[in-house]
């Protein structure tokens, strides 16, 4: 049995008894096999003393029970780690941030409290999954589209609070930006509602973010200042139609112009999340893999060598797929305007019409629909795609830890970051798969994300190598000002140490808040580097 740090077995058992009184004995889990359910399947410390395993779990069904749990935890100094569905694998999953914490599993708080079709919002509890909300909307034929992450088994609330993202229009796929109003149990057991939720009888909680005075919602994302128990989300009205189109650019140097034009469409709100690709680079991974190996054999190639490589491949250097949502006249007109602009900016650009769909997708056609998340349909198919990756090794990893960095939305930053990632892998003695044909993730419309995926294992020796690689990459990228926007709990202290302006004044400010709001330090100690005063010596 794992105990919380600095808590006696007697106090721990007394706390569990109080939890049982609050939620009922059936909803407190303390046996080894029950607690093991909360292990992080992708842990990069699997089986090691540093693995973030829980001491117990408790599953409240209502806000009052959360308050009782929090108050009991304060009495006994029990660290709590709330999860909504706990399925954000690679970022810790259902395991706590600190070993020995009690997981507060909010799965029983799974009510969809309101979905307003005309005002296009939803108000949900933490245990509502994207699938649940999707089915609710679909089954009632509400003309609303969800923006879902992929895989879609998590909750809108949890994904939003972890700054997760989806695939449709920028205003909706930034899930935290699309939230409106929350209810929070504070570390001392009070209940607050943000924005217009603080006004008795107001019917605008999910309509207006701010209310009056400081907006505190951001304090409850990627943090440890409270347990969010309700959250509102703005939803996209169901578009009448969906259209895709693909643009290609022939030369390697065309990426700059391609990014400029895509950004123009994004910033005007005319396309959903663009999907960049590199036909030349992709071809080289298949039958032309030898050509790519030749290109990279002497280290990072010159731009001239890359241009020659593209010419030899006889394929465009770059592609981007665009996704249009709206009335048919609008999506077709936007695609036409986009073609005109790309054609003017990029000599030799080509265009391919893609799929046209009228929405909503009938239920019976959902199973055969490709790229479901683009249509707001949650899915788990991404696991199949990854699991059947032809590059999967003879000894496949058991999971992965993602290291994505935020870089400026421009070609030069993408190329430079790809080179730095490549060099960091080589310095760490690990295979470097990066090439000049790296393409960005565009979940957040105003920046690019790029990075690497580090394998995790059930084997401690292999995990040690993965951790060394992760740290090497993070350190090298940070030298250029490229850091992650979220990370696995094992690396949160390291990540936050890179946000070091003015002697880490941001973290020092957050710690002052922590000490004031959570004096006993019971909520998620160490989450994103914010430790309570009594535990700051634990910081890595």
């Amino acid at each position, binding site marked *: 049995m794992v105990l919380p740090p600095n808590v006696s077995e007697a106090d721990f058992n007394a706390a569990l008894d109080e939890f049982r009184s609050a939620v009922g004995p059936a909803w407190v889990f303390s046996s080894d096999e029950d607690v093991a359910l909360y292990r992080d399947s*992708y842990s990069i410390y699997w089986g090691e003393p540093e693995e973030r395993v829980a001491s117990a779990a408790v599953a409240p069904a209502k806000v009052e029970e959360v308050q009782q749990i929090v108050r009991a935890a304060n009495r006994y100094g029990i660290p709590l780690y709330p999860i909504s569905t706990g399925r954000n694998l690679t970022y810790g999953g259902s395991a706590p941030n600190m070993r020995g914490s009690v997981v507060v599993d909010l799965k029983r708080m799974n009510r969809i409290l309101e979905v307003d079709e005309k005002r296009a919002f939803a108000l949900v509890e933490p245990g509502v999954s994207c699938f649940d909300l999707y089915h609710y909307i679909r089954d009632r034929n509400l003309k609303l589209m969800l923006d879902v992450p992929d895989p879609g088994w998590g909750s809108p609330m949890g994904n939003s609070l972890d700054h997760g993202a989806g695939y449709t229009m920028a205003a909706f796929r930034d899930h935290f930006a699309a939230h409106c109003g929350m209810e929070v149990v504070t570390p001392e057991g009070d209940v607050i509602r943000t924005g217009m939720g603080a006004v008795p009888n107001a019917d605008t909680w999910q309509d207006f973010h701010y209310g009056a005075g400081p907006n505190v919602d951001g304090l409850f994302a990627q943090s440890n200042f409270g347990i969010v128990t309700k959250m509102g989300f703005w939803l996209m009205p169901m578009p009448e139609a969906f259209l895709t189109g693909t643009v290609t650019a022939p030369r390697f140097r065309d990426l700059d112009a391609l990014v400029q034009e895509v950004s123009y469409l994004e910033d005007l709100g005319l396309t959903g999340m663009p999907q960049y690709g590199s036909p030349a680079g992709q071809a080289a991974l298949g039958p032309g893999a030898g050509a790519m190996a030749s290109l990279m054999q002497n280290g990072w190639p010159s731009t001239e060598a890359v241009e020659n490589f593209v010419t030899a491949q006889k394929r465009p250097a770059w592609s981007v797929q665009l996704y249009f949502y709206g009335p048919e006249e609008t999506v077709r007109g936007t695609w036409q305007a986009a073609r005109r602009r790309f054609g003017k900016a990029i000599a030799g650009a080509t265009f391919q019409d893609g799929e046209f769909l009228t929405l909503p997708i009938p239920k019976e056609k959902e199973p055969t629909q490709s790229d479901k998340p683009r249509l707001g349909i949650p*899915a788990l198919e991404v696991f199949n795609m990854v699991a059947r990756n032809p590059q999967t090794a003879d000894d496949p990893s058991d999971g992965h830890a993602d290291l994505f960095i935020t870089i400026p939305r421009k070609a030069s930053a993408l190329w430079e970051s790809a080179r730095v990632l490549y060099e960091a892998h080589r310095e760490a003695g690990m295979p470097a798969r990066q090439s000049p044909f790296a393409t960005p993730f565009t979940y957040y419309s105003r920046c690019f994300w790029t990075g690497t995926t580090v394998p995790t294992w059930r084997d401690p020796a292999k995990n040690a190598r993965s951790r060394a690689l992760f740290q090497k990459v993070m350190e090298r990228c940070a030298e250029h000002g490229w850091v992650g926007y979220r990370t696995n709990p094992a690396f949160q202290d390291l990540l936050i140490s890179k946000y070091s302006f003015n002697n880490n004044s941001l973290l020092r400010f957050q710690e002052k808040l922590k000490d004031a709001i959570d004096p006993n330090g019971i909520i998620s100690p160490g989450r994103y580097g914010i430790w309570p005063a009594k535990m700051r010596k634990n910081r890595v």
Partner: protein
Amino acid sequence: MVSRRRVMKIGAATVAGALVNRPVPGRNPAPAYSAFQRAVFDERFAQCRAFAAELNSAGVLTSAIRGDVAELWYGDLRALMSGNRLAVAGLTDRVSLFCLEELARDVGMRVIFRAEHIIDREQDGHARHSAVGSASLVVVARSLPPEDDFGLAMARLFRRFDLSEARDSAAQKRTGPFSPKNKTALVSWIIA
């Protein structure tokens, strides 16, 4: 990947929508007993189809998937398992079990047995078997011959399984979702 699910009804004796074990009188060569309320199989694989047919003949409702468990889980399996917490058996690929194991936490259930059958597509489809969990199953599963129809063998083994057997938590969360290169990793499993 196309996702769909079919529930194979158990002959005329089955009431549509009934989600309990119903032995079929006069059809079962073995005693009409099964510990399982449902068997999940991936219909893309012959071994999985044989597994399902055998358990179906024992009166177990079977659900077909094609690599994606989402429709099955959110369609009815979650509600079913949440309601009665009766065991579910399966023969699927790794990724399906991986997802089901994570999802089953919501209903307080866990993998108590798993046998991996690693099929080498470059060696006549011979399978290498390993197993962990419930002791009576492990012994037999590990000794399955490589050329055997392990789907049928595992189903017959499961038909005789006594759920009151002591549990071994070692079966929980053994691997990730990924299959080895050029191999198919199928898994026989019990979630209880």
